[in-house]
């Protein structure tokens, strides 16, 4: 897992997963989502993309259905989410696992269920799910032990430094 591009992608997944979970868990029960039937053409087009991305599911994931009250916001939120979750340097399968682990860690009921279903849809078996649960559990323990004892980071130099410039640099 060398090279900064992988870690930028992982950070994007962590960030957007948290953003979606916050809205889904916080507002899902108190704010009505925009339904597929009756959605404006602009929103319907984004909904079609979302359904396609998630394997043709008939339901729009809650955070996007809630964001659809502002079509322009939905379009940008979806564009960012799609970019973060799509195959790139990291495969969608691993990104779903990252999103599941983050959701489990932050006790997001929406995210845990949603990304667990995504992992399975993308081919992760029960063994793989158990592996991700184990890693999540063990590092939820390690992090709390380290924080309780206020340990200072001392393993940062394990990873090699990536000397490459930011994407696009020097292209113009």
């Amino acid at each position: 897992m060398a090279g900064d591009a992988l870690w930028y992608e992982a950070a994007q997944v962590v960030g957007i997963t948290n953003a979606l979970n916050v809205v889904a868990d916080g507002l899902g029960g108190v704010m009505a989502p925009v339904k597929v039937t009756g959605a404006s053409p602009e929103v319907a087009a984004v909904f079609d993309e979302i359904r396609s991305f998630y394997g043709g599911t008939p339901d729009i994931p809650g955070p996007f259905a809630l964001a659809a009250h502002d079509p322009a916001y939905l379009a940008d939120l979806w564009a960012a989410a799609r970019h973060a979750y799509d195959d790139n340097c990291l495969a969608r399968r691993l990104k779903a696992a990252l999103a599941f682990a983050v959701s489990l860690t932050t006790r997001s009921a929406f995210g845990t269920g949603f990304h667990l279903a995504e992992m399975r849809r993308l081919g992760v078996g029960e063994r793989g799910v158990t592996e991700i649960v184990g890693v999540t559990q063990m590092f939820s323990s390690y992090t709390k032990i380290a924080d309780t004892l206020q340990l200072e980071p001392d393993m940062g130099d394990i990873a090699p430094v990536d000397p490459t410039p930011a994407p696009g640099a020097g292209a113009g």
Partner: protein
Amino acid sequence: MPTVRLRDAEEYPEPARRAFELSKRWFNHEFPVPPAMSRVMAWDPGFGTPHGRAMKRAMGPGEFTRGEKEMVAAAVSGANACSY
């Protein structure tokens, strides 16, 4: 600053010092001193030994590679806002 005094490797019994050597292999890195977390977990073998075994089992290759799992671990640490 840590809330406990982290002991030097020489202050641990022999089995713990062997475990510190093994952790170099696990991380494939020549630590000048054992990482703080390794020394913390070696303090009480009744806890640290099975906890360490569970961690190694969880992190070993399976459906996901060790590298992929390290990335998941980093994401979990980030979500827990842990800088260690």
